[in-house]
């Protein structure tokens, strides 16, 4: 009986977190623990001539000062491993745990102090003397490939880190037969991570017992285990990684960082537990994020605005190193051409080194860039042909009867991009209705009569979710009758415990409260992947469903024997197996568990194995593709350039929903992140590579007072790729937000003919465009 799957179950996680009893890395105190602080490069690019740590060493309360040369690792000279090697990478340059003779971005680790307190460690940092020889820095990705551009790395011939191409169909033919060809160039800037909890690492070494134990504020404990064990040359099972409560992830906590090597190594060398908590200024420069991407695109279409081909080039700011392969480049171009059936595509992306913090995925990864680019071209067609932008989308959408639909593009693993299910036309209709799109003209005119400028913007997106290959679950009934569920999947607030408890409860006839949960501890579950790319529900959903189903089968078989009844006559409810029609003939789950867990001299019933449990790694057979349409309604103050979002409507399709309340939470949080990208968040570097926005006075995050109420309607197109019909929902809010907002701003300013070629659309930029348009009109 399905009671909990699909219901708005209140989260199991919340009471603890609401009463101050969460346990984040910095909440963990270990006896004898020291505190670390890092000296970080103050130069965007420099040669290190020497480092003098003697004064810092001498400070009372300091237990050690370490540079790369002081780290006792087997391969001191080696840079960090590439997490995701790929043939498209031309120059695979990763950083050392701490800099050796060159620093390539402000914030790069140079030295570490371990002391009795963080305050003393920071006092000591000021006493370290580094002799730098500053070198020219390359900062703007658009000029990084120029002949006279400074080189980001000593010894490189050029700044091209790699190149990839997504192409299918006959692109020349598409452009040759087109009625129209339109071009657009634009810059996109996505901001950083800004999880409210910064990163943090606590390491304890226990050489005579179980080796290293590390608590890290990470999305991917198994990736950290793999990378650290490799670096140390140790078996993975001697390195235990625990992700305790993690205060938001959003992508940048999914990698493997220098600090995750240095802290354990120094803890081991000092023979003392060591903790490092990133401060917010460090987060701005030492935690990876996203930044600039520049697009030059051309679209070929027929006289009705039907797209025939899309071609162009992209320049992607990679930052100084490549810790995370080419995941951002891949996820930028593989979603092309988004929700639309376009027969030909030819897009080349160059990713270039700059002397800035390395870039890696932030909520949505490259998808928000790619989808924004396609949506820009749709807007361009609508503007040039005088068509309603929603109608242009309607004419180009992949149709429901084309599902499953192969776009022609290939995924990172070479498999075809295939949309498994969905109805994009219906989804857009729902969004337009929710937004009262047809009533907008009247609202706009009424506002104009008062001298106010209102605009409306539409966007559509797809999101490939649930990347494999697995995220396993063990479900075990224990003698108390409680269900113990263990998985590797780390949570940063998504509510995995609740979601999994809902699925398991329905299979085993218990209440979610009866489901105990442990996750993200490599010492408790043998193998996992991590929480990235909206993958957990589409992987752990099926594995917890399958594992609990297997346990259910064992339960029924054992109960049938115990109760001397046939399995068909049994019902599983309230933690008991009963004979239908004879409710007193019953056995509890705890009693059954005990039968399979006897002590010395006991006997396991024939045909059964010890411990009433099952493990499954079932995932989705392919990537479930979610979709959505958004409508933004904005007001622009043409004097100040301020944009207010008045109304925001979302129609979203992530297949079958396990907990609609939590799906809404993901979507709303995601939309607000996307609005932040569109209007506020900007990580600024000067032309020397010095970061200018390193606190929340300078770098603006979206606040409650600036955000609209967001209305959501769901469409459920079950995924055929897993038994639950689920798709991921973590990023589908963020991806379509910027294109909807930007289109709405242009619509508000349609009288001025303003075309936006950059986001975040801040007031200064927008007033510049309005002034220029007015000046042109006056000529």
């Amino acid at each position, binding site marked *: 009986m399905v009671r909990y799957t699909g219901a708005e179950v*209140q*989260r199991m*996680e*919340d*009471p603890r*977190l*609401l*009463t*101050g*009893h*969460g*346990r*984040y890395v*910095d*909440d963990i*105190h270990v006896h004898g623990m020291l505190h670390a602080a890092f000296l970080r490069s103050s130069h965007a690019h420099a040669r290190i001539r020497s480092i003098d740590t003697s004064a810092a060493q001498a400070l*009372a309360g300091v237990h050690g000062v370490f540079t790369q040369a002081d780290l006792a690792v087997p391969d001191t000279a080696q840079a960090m491993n590439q997490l995701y090697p790929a043939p498209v990478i031309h120059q695979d340059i990763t950083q050392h745990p701490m800099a050796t003779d060159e620093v390539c971005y402000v914030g790069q680790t140079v030295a570490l102090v371990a002391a009795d307190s963080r*305050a003393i460690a920071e006092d000591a940092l000021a006493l370290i003397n580094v002799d730098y020889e500053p070198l020219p820095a390359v900062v703007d990705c658009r000029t990084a490939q120029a002949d006279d551009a400074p080189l980001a790395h000593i010894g490189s011939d050029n700044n091209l880190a790699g190149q990839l191409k997504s192409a299918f169909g006959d692109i020349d033919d598409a452009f040759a037969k087109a009625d129209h060809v339109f071009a657009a160039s634009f810059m996109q800037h996505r901001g950083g991570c*800004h*999880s*409210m*909890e*910064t990163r943090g690492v606590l390491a304890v070494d226990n050489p005579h017992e179980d080796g290293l134990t590390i608590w890290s504020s990470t999305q991917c404990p198994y990736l950290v285990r793999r990378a650290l064990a490799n670096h140390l040359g140790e078996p993975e099972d001697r390195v235990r990684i625990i992700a305790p*409560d*993690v*205060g*938001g992830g*959003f992508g940048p906590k999914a990698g493997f960082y220098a600090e995750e090597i240095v802290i354990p190594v120094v803890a081991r060398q000092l023979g003392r537990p060591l903790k490092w908590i990133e*401060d*917010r200024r460090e987060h701005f420069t030492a935690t990876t994020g996203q930044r600039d991407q520049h697009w030059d695109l051309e679209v070929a279409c027929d006289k009705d605005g039907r797209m025939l081909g899309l071609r162009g080039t992209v320049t992607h700011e990679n930052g100084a190193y490549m810790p995370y392969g080419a995941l951002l480049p891949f996820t930028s171009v593989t979603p092309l051409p988004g929700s639309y059936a376009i027969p030909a595509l030819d897009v080349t992306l160059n990713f270039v080194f700059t002397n800035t913090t390395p870039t890696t995925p932030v909520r949505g990864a490259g998808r928000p860039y790619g989808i924004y680019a396609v949506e820009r071209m749709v807007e361009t067609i609508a503007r040039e042909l005088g068509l309603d932008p929603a109608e242009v989308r309607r004419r180009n959408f992949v149709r429901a009867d084309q599902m499953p639909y192969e776009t022609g593009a290939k995924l990172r693993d070479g498999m075809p991009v295939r949309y498994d299910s969905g109805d994009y036309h219906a989804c857009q209709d729902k969004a337009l209705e929710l937004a009262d799109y047809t009533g907008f003209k009247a609202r706009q005119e009424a506002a104009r009569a008062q001298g106010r400028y209102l605009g409306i913007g539409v966007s559509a997106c797809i999101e490939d979710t649930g990347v494999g290959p697995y995220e396993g679950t063990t479900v075990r009934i224990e003698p108390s009758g409680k269900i113990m569920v263990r998985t590797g999947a780390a949570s*940063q*607030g*998504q*509510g995995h415990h609740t979601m999994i408890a809902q699925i398991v409860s329905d299979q085993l006839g218990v209440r979610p409260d009866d489901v105990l949960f442990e996750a993200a501890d490599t010492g408790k579950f043998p193998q996992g992947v991590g929480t990235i790319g909206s993958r957990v529900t589409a992987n752990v959903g099926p594995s917890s469903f399958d594992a609990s189903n297997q346990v259910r089968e064992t339960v029924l078989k054992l109960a049938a024997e115990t109760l001397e009844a046939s399995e068909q006559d049994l019902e599983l409810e309230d933690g008991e197996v009963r004979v239908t029609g004879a409710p007193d003939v019953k056995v509890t789950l705890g009693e059954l568990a005990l039968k399979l867990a006897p002590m010395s001299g006991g006997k396991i019933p024939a045909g059964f194995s010890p411990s009433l449990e099952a493990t499954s790694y079932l995932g989705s057979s392919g990537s479930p593709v979610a979709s959505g349409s958004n409508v933004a309604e904005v007001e622009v103050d043409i004097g100040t350039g301020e944009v207010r979002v008045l109304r925001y409507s979302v129609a979203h399709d992530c297949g079958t929903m396990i907990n609609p*309340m*939590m799906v*809404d*939470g993901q979507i*709303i*949080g*995601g*939309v*607000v*992140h996307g609005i932040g990208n569109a209007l506020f968040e900007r990580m600024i570097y000067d032309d020397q590579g010095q970061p200018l926005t390193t*606190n*929340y*006075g300078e770098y603006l*995050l979206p*606040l*409650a*007072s*600036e*955000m609209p*109420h*967001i209305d959501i309607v769901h469409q459920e197109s079950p995924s055929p790729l897993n038994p639950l019909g689920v798709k991921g929902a973590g990023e589908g*809010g963020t991806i379509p937000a910027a294109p909807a907002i930007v289109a709405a701003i242009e619509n508000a300013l349609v009288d001025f003919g303003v075309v936006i070629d950059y986001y975040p659309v801040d007031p200064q930029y927008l007033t510049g465009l309005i002034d220029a348009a007015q000046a042109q009109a006056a000529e």
Partner: protein
Amino acid sequence: MADTREITVTINGQAETRAVETRTNLADFLRHEVELTGTHVGCEHGVCGACTVLVDGDAVRSCLMLAVQADGHEVTSIEGLAADDGTLHPVQDAFWKNHGLQCGFCTPGMVISIAAFLKDNPDPTEEEVRSAISGNICRCTGYQGIVAAALEAAKTMRQEG
């Protein structure tokens, strides 16, 4: 040697006497000296609001206040908000019902800020709630569940008088 003073602060109804470095802020004092880690530090520069606690009943950013300034005062942190029998404060309960939290990191500061706001504004509009929490940053929720929770808590508290 760092300058140290002895202070006594009443925290969640209990007097705590400690010798602290004068440079220690109230957030670090609560978290690392008194070991009440429910108060979170998100920015250390007074913008994010995660560290908000009540000092003599007023919402205060504990990262911007020195521990020695709290000497002789009463502090309520998130751990002290629920009733002694564990019954959640109406704001906490409304957060639970309205999905007002995801990762929970901003939550203690949000809950305390809203509890303080509702004492002075028992019947706020949505706009007033949004402006009241505009000094608290949440990266996860998009604020909607938090706003709904605040409005529901206000209603509950009015009914309970």
